[in-house]
């Protein structure tokens, strides 16, 4: 499940009397359409954004935290509702013009007001917070001069309009929530259906089914997380015949080595230094792998697993060692597979030609891949290719990062996983196709950016990158130059 961070817009504190209302005796209406959440403050309430709360106050008991805010809005609205003061960020707009955060409201609590409070004030607070249906027109306090009949009539009408508007808005939002929920249910149902087909029809007859139209189509749509690990494992295969036993041997060696590194103060000479340095670097890098997930950091649930896997790999392939960027690939595998299987996949994946070339930093081969990529780039996106060439934004500056981490660092993780899906189906060619898909999708933006902004954009792609749009763009990329396919182009560029 996704977590939504709700911005703290305004805090209402019951006992905050820093603002004393000056207009004694007036009916105070606080229009509260903001979300209020702050788990660290127990006295703060949480109100779903879709509700409007009218809070009546005759005696200035309640006050907003920010007096300036309140004064500004009250002066803005003073004219529209004579005798009433409207407070709140949105008070000057009709309720229909709520910000689009409403879309998220399907995930917010259903109750009109959830109160997170441990103090004794919570009960009293409940009394004053209610949904719009509880809006009450109070009679004018008796100590004030009576309104004229016209005025009385006008205010009554205004009141009725407000109630009506609020009711309409609630209906509308309820509809939107329902729609959103239905969409979500549909997606979940599709995923469940897909998982069923994978489990029942494809996985049991893998060799027979893996190239079938049905499997390929499902594959393109994104493998359901529930079966992703299984599919990946089968798709990556185990040409290297790495066994769980081998993993355990490498693991215990890695642990010995790490202990030695910790024990000996004096650095050794020659090749050993680099290997040990890369052992040490693993520790430093693990914490910097998907830091926002907070699970690979020291003390997190996957810290040890990631550490073990990378350490074991250094012992398994001392000639390759640890290269920065590997931690991202390992982490994505760990998120989908048990540790020994993740290791087997990791070893096999890195043994594929493209990744072997890049992680061994084989200069000639890397340049060949860049050159092949450039050929397809020019073929598919000539305008952008010219622009990049003119602004000196060369492929090695952003492609390295994408290839090293199979997009896991630059893209949102869920989108990256979908690229992984098809990469494991189609092989290394797809990495370049996906790269060009990213450029295709963002072509108009990129054409306007200079070198540094373009480079920044590409090394940190937008957080709201939509997988479906990206895959449409990827689909539009043709992986042939003239009659040559990717492998042939690569062959030409590498000789």
């Amino acid at each position, binding site marked *: 499940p996704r977590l939504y961070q709700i911005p703290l817009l305004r805090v209402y504190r019951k006992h905050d009397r820093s603002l004393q209302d000056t207009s004694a005796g007036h009916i105070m209406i606080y229009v509260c359409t903001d979300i209020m959440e702050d788990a660290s403050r127990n006295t703060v309430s949480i109100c779903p954004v879709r509700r409007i709360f009218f809070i009546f106050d005759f005696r200035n008991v309640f006050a907003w935290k920010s007096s300036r805010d309140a004064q500004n809005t009250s002066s803005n609205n003073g004219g529209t509702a004579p005798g009433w003061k409207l407070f709140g960020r949105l008070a000057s707009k009709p309720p229909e013009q709520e910000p689009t955060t409403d879309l998220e409201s399907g995930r917010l609590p259903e109750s009109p007001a959830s109160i997170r409070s441990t103090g004794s004030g919570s009960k009293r607070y409940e009394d004053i917070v209610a949904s719009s249906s509880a809006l009450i027109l109070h009679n004018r306090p008796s100590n004030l001069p009576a309104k004229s009949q016209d005025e009385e009539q006008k205010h009554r009408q205004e009141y009725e309009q407000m109630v009506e508007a609020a009711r309409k808005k609630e209906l509308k939002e309820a509809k939107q929530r329902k729609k959103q929920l239905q969409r979500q249910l549909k997606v979940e149902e599709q995923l469940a259906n897909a998982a069923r087909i994978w489990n029942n029809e494809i996985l049991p007859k893998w060799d027979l089914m893996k190239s079938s139209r049905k499997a390929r189509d499902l594959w393109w749509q994104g493998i359901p997380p529930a079966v992703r690990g299984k599919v990946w494992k089968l798709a990556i295969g185990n040409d290297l015949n790495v066994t769980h036993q081998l993993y355990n041997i490498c693991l215990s060696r890695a642990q010995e080595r790490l202990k030695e590194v910790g024990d000996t103060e004096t*650095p050794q000479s020659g090749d050993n230094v*680099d290997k040990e*340095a*890369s052992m040490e*670097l693993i520790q*430093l*890098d693990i914490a*910097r*792998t*998907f*830091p*926002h997930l907070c699970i690979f*950091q020291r003390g997190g649930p996957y810290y040890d697993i990631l550490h073990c896997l990378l350490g074991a790999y250094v012992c398994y392939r001392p000639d390759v*060692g640890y*290269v*920065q*960027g590997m*931690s*991202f690939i390992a982490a994505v595998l760990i998120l989908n597979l048990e540790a020994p299987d993740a290791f087997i996949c990791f070893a096999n994946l890195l043994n594929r030609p493209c990744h072997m070339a890049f992680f061994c*930093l084989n*200069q000639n081969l890397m340049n060949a891949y860049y050159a092949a990529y450039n050929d397809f780039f020019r073929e598919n996106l000539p305008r952008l290719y010219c622009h990049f060439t003119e602004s000196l934004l*060369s492929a*090695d*500056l*952003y492609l*390295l*990062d994408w290839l*090293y*981490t199979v997009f896991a*660092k630059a893209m949102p993780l869920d989108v990256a996983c979908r690229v992984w899906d098809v990469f494991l189906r189609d092989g290394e060619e797809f990495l370049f196709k996906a790269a060009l898909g990213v450029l295709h999708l963002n072509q108009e933006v990129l054409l306007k950016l200079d*070198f*540094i*902004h373009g*480079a*920044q954009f590409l*090394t940190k792609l937008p957080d709201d990158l939509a997988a479906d749009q990206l895959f449409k763009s990827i689909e539009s990329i043709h992986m042939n130059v003239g009659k040559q396919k990717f492998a042939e182009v690569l062959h030409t560029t590498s000789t």
Partner: protein
Amino acid sequence: MNDTYPVPDEKLFKVLIVGDPTVGKTSFVQRYVQNTFRKDYKGTVGVDFALKVVRTSENQTVKLQLWDIAGQERFTWMTRVYYKDSHGCIIMFDLGKDNSLENIIKWKNDVDSKCKAPDGSPLPCILLANKCDLPDKQVTREELESFHKQHNFIGWTETSAKEGIMVNESMKFLMEIMLRRESNSTEPMSDSIRLDVPPPRTQGTGSQNEEN
């Protein structure tokens, strides 16, 4: 209105930031560019890019293109591409690590052998001793003072990206040098931007002027 103003003089400098992994290169860049510090940067693969625009006077702005280069040694063959057409360089190390100076020499040689300033002279390099907010220090100031001269750095200072100590000052120093080089100025440097007097080694919030 705007078209009556002269087009401001805009300079573009490419600045490299190199040094061993996790000495704080990305943190330094983020502190300088955004004045923020986080504990959770993703490790750099290849290069990360950043841009800082500094208004140096009424009619001059300087754009600093910062190339934050991954620190793993085996990437060295690629650094030739990254170093191309640079104007200045920061070599950074972690004050708390003991083999730092050896590696600094490696980085300095790497930069000097692969790249020259546009006028053909060696690239102006400053040496930054980062993480000075931490108590454990492996290198003394006296060592650094002689070390930086011996290896032809144009200056050195202790910095703390975390606390924001000497971040803006060191960049300003490098920027002034690059501007002077470009205009072939022979005027003596103003005292305010000399770096060879390190900041007091006190812990704290730092006393630098924030450029917002």
